[in-house]
């Protein structure tokens, strides 16, 4: 690992997905004299935002209200969301969505030229903006292309950040990053830093997440002393393709798709999620009910059906069927064409003629880097936004289509606040930061390339040689077995123990590749190291939370316990790098006291009963693009 000249900017953003790019534009727009660095391990348009399909929530239609969006989000979160943050989020959402429209996002439209919206799970009224079923793709490319307008956004594409750099006053002032092309370790310095590195779904074997979702930013913040908050809350999306885990968007149910078990029964009606209306009933699909229940509940219903022996056995495991046939070819092609393409290519079935086999799949990490409602961490000058961060607006279960809006609202907010911090803290002492980056390069060289590392990693050397893929697979197995949809004390303890063992064995990891240029085996090793730390916080936070709430379901503690656990868990790294220390912080409740979380008939569908129509202005309309 050689060293390069230090690069100096005003704000450094780590991560080039939706949140990072939105932050970059916010800074560049409001501070034309600022230099903004965007450090990303992939080219921005490869970021995982690109795969989001169904849409982004924002109140725009007269039939909807901010109040409804807030309530849907808080109840969807099983009251673990901070309500001041949710209010801010919902109030800012429409403006951010319109701004992205102005930047070129090709939102689907109504005949009058206004944007179209569709219903999503857990929503009282349709409010999901969409660009057919490639919403994340269009949002990411619109943001990326917009950044090209600004000469003061400097991209460090294919730079893998490994460490945050703090000055003597404890302020975050940049990161050390490996330039993949050359293997050079660079100090990218700024007066403040924003982490926007996405989630960590790759801690699990079966996930919608791309290869790059390895929790690097979460691990970086954790190692610098920031807590990881609410990490036990992992979202399983109810409809992934078996085998590959490819996502079939919730929009397929928003458009009217139904879920059936091996007997052809719409089994969700057996789990207090409402009445199975006939698909020809004009009230179908009913919002906040049945197939449009929240993701955590739908995934849990699948497991119960499986335990009751009513799922369908395939060579890739148990599935249920997502049936879209009644929508017809024209609607499928117009509204959810990507679903058809994915089902044809990766499941070999055409949803126009056959039901799609689906099962729950790890999709999203509700928890993340502990930030306050200003996107700031406890380290001065360090901010985080997007999936890697936990504000928290998502609580114990994120509502579908809130995450794309979240990256806009909080990406922009983090950008503005980081810029202000940079303005107020202009001094930048290079020397100490540069030497930290040099030390980091040396640490990586010693750990993975040195003669000692090669010996330790060889069968006849200091220890048993460990291969990255073997450790990763054992981690996957431990997470699925012990920290999946249903958990208990014993399963979580086993997972905690296994992770501790894997961390020890990681010291003997052995690379085939000891060269500098584009060493993706080295980055895979660093990613595994991030995943081990993040997974450990998931398992330990889950073990300590002896209640069931949202996506965290304990078979040995089946009820929600507001007396003891209406609180965010905070996992802090301990001195020796072993098991995290878990603390709690009360949830911020403003106007919505914790209540029963009901869907279906009891879900408060007053608005619909008053007759504004259930199909909504878009769902029933065949003319939208």
């Amino acid at each position, binding site marked *: 690992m050689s060293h390069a000249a230090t690069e100096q900017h005003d704000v450094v953003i780590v991560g080039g997905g939706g949140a990072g790019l939105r932050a970059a534009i916010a800074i560049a727009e409001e501070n034309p004299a600022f230099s903004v660095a965007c450090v990303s391990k992939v*080219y921005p348009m490869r970021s995982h935002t*690109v795969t989001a399909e169904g849409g982004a929530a924002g109140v725009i239609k007269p039939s909807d209200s901010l109040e409804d969006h807030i309530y849907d989000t808080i109840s969807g979160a099983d009251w673990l969301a901070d309500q001041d943050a949710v209010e801010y989020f919902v109030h800012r959402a429409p403006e951010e969505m*319109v701004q992205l429209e102005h930047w070129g996002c090709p939102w689907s439209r109504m005949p009058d030229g206004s944007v179209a919206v569709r219903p999503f799970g857990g929503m009282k009224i349709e409010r999901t903006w969409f660009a057919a079923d490639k919403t994340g793709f269009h949002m990411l490319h619109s943001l990326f292309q*917009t950044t090209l307008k600004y000469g003061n956004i400097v991209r460090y594409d294919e730079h893998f950040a490994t460490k945050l750099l703090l000055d003597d006053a404890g302020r975050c002032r940049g990161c050390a990053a490996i330039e993949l092309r050359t293997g050079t370790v660079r100090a990218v310095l700024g007066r403040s830093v924003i982490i926007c590195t996405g989630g960590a779904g790759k801690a699990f074997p079966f996930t919608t997440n791309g290869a*790059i979702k390895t929790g690097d930013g979460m691990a970086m913040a954790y190692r610098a002393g920031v807590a990881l908050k609410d990490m036990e809350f992992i979202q399983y999306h109810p409809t992934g393709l078996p085998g590959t885990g490819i996502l079939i968007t919730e929009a397929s149910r928003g458009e009217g798709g139904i879920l059936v078990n091996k007997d052809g029964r719409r089994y969700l009606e057996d789990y207090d999620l409402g009445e199975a209306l006939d698909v020809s009933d004009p009230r179908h699909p009913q919002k906040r009910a049945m197939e449009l229940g929240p993701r955590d509940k739908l995934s849990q219903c699948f497991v119960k059906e499986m335990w009751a022996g009513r799922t369908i056995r395939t060579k890739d495991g148990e599935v249920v069927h997502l049936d879209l046939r009644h929508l017809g070819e024209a609607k499928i092609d117009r509204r959810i064409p990507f679903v058809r393409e*994915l089902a044809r290519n990766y499941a070999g079935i055409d949803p126009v003629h056959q039901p799609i086999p689906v099962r729950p799949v790890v999709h999203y990490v509700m928890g993340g880097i502990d930030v306050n409602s200003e996107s700031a961490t406890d380290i001065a000058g360090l901010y985080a936004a997007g999936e890697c961060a936990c504000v928290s607006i998502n609580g114990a279960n994120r509502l579908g289509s809130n995450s794309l809006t979240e990256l806009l609202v909080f990406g922009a907010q983090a950008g503005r606040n980081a810029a202000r911090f940079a303005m107020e803290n202009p001094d930048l002492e290079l020397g100490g930061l540069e030497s930290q980056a040099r030390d980091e390069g040396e640490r990586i060289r010693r750990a993975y390339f040195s003669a000692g590392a090669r010996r330790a990693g060889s069968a006849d050397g200091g220890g048993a040689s460990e291969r990255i893929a073997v450790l990763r697979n054992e981690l996957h197995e431990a997470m699925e077995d012990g920290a999946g949809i249903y958990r208990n004390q014993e399963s979580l303890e086993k997972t905690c123990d296994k992770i501790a063992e894997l961390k020890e064995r990681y010291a003997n990891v052995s690379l085939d590749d000891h*060269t500098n240029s584009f060493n993706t085996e080295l980055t895979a090793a660093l990613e595994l190291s991030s995943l081990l730390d993040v997974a450990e916080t998931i398992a330990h936070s889950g073990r300590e939370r002896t209640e069931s709430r949202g996506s965290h379901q304990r078979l040995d503690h089946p009820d929600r316990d507001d007396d003891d656990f209406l609180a965010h868990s905070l996992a802090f790294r301990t001195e020796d790098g072993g098991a995290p220390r878990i603390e709690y912080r009360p949830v911020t409740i403003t106007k919505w006291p914790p209540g029963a979380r009901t869907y279906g008939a009891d879900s408060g569908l007053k608005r619909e009963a008053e007759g504004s129509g259930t199909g909504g202005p878009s769902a029933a309309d065949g*003319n939208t693009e």
Partner: protein
Amino acid sequence: MSKERASASAGRVGSGEQVAGSPVATDERTITLELFRYHPETDAEPRFQSYEVPYNEDWVVLDAINWIKDHVDGTVTHRWSCRMGVCGSCGMMVNGEPVLTCAAFLKSYFPFAVRVEPLVNFPVERDLVVSMDGFMDKLEAVKPYMIRDDVNDTSGGEFRQSPAELAKYKQFSMCINCMLCYAACPVVGHEEGFLGPAALALGHRYNKDSRDHGRSERMDVMLSDEAMWGCTFVGECSVVCPKHVDPAGAIQQAKAMGAQEYFKAFVMPKGAGA
């Protein structure tokens, strides 16, 4: 998970050496991958290396490459992420054709060997990884963003756009920047100044967007020298495009638009007709 169960034979056929720690050959079916190898620090010339990979009919070429990297040879270098045909990272030449390796199923090649090379018309960084520098510059050159004065003023709500207006450019907004069209294009390889299919389609996408006012500014770039005129309408770009963007169609439309601008320039001061 099924990937791990498929722990069949492994070994470097090309070099003939048995790899330490790799599983022993069984009677399960295998398929041969011949990978293009080139390391800038050690290799004067590229070479091919063969690997026997367990054959799984659900696997795509990318799965096979990942299996090699995980279990046999960690030095194999390639880009990938989403494995669902939308991030655009994993484009390579497979048996001479530019494809997304996450969408190229082994069963279309079995039982014959699969030869994998980096995309042609790009400098190779290492193995299957090409340099994207030139491509990124070309994307940026066409000013692929909304140009109008009130672009940051959200007070009036969304800019209206009818479904028909959206349909005029929607297809050209579907490009995932996978660069397969540059590998297929006979002009990209020898005309340095040619912007190429994806960049031209992207510029055209904004030109056709009813919300945009930047056409004349953009056309200044697209109409200069070889930027667009180099295209000879071979149309291979549209054939290989995995997202049906039809860059050839975009270029044809843009040329027609450009001819109009050209004639307008004679009768009107520059920019007045935009």
